[in-house]
């Protein structure tokens, strides 16, 4: 059953990624070169809708949150390394697979690189967990926790900020 739900979820996800045109090198580099904000619009729209749904479920007592620990060493250094690689490759792990589905077979080079990167990380993980992954470990916290605010205040502020950003993108025709 897990396998079937995974496949179905992936099918819909891949279809939507393709229809949103976010599987293209041009769209990802377009965002990083500040020329075309398609992927930002796509991601932030998903986040706004998901956020409201998840917190409604959470407040109904469904206990849906599965937070990853906030470890600044890992999030910042790992985040930067990811970004450097992303700027070179122009696709991320999920979209690389989708790009391949669209026929963009050049994604394979990056996919092989990613598998090697995973292997290198596995070899270095013991060292990382004694160093980088101990720096600034705040545990599983949310932005509302960190700010000491009710989550709906954060959600409303975020919606307003993102909508303002969208308006600005449209004004600049990005």
């Amino acid at each position: 059953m897990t396998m079937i739900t995974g496949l179905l979820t992936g099918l819909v996800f891949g279809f939507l990624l393709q229809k949103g045109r976010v599987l293209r090198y041009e769209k990802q580099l377009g965002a990083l070169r500040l020329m075309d904000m398609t992927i930002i619009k796509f991601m932030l729209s998903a986040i706004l809708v998901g956020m409201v749904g998840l917190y409604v479920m959470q407040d109904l007592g469904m206990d849906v949150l599965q937070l990853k620990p906030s470890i600044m060493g890992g999030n910042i250094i790992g985040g930067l390394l990811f970004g450097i690689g992303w700027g070179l490759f122009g696709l991320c792990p999920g979209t690389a697979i989708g790009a391949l589905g669209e026929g963009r077979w050049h994604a394979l080079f990056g996919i092989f690189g990613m598998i090697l990167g995973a292997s290198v990380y596995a070899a270095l993980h013991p060292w990382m967990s004694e160093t980088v992954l101990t720096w600034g470990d705040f545990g599983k916290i949310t932005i509302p926790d960190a700010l000491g605010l009710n989550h709906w205040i954060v959600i409303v502020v975020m919606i307003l900020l993102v909508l303002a950003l969208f308006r600005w993108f449209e004004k600049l025709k990005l």
Partner: protein
Amino acid sequence: MKAYDDGGWNPYLAGALVGVLSIVSVAFTGKYLGASTTFVRAAASLEQTVAPERVAGNVYYKKNTAKLDWQGMVLIGILAGAALGALHDRSFKAESVPPMWEERFGPNIWKRGAVAFVGGMFALFGARLADGCPSGHGLSGLMQLSVSGFVSLVFFFAGGLLVANLIYRRHA
């Protein structure tokens, strides 16, 4: 500036539907979208064929064993879903070098391949160190308002902006 458009849906709509998909997935199966862990499992299964004792002795591979799980099936689904979408709107194209890359750096497949390979290596290494990629941290993390999702996403873009603007600044 959007020089590479060929139809497709409004990105706000397609994105919002991914939000709905996430909600449905969490509500019915308790699973959040993600992608990068599958590359660790793939690495484990490849390494197993050449150095099984190395895989067996690695803590990280013990946590992420060489098996096809829910997330692995999601990636297979993404491959098929993207292919279906591309066939549906006739945008499927066998492409050996991305057009934007070719405009600046030429049609050499190996030049593009080498940069993409090195980039992929850094990207996955970084994603595992950060404990997530733009799906796991960007989408799933940030929609939970997680601090780790927010910080990671900011630094994904910081690194990406820096490198993309450096490599496209002048001819290589």
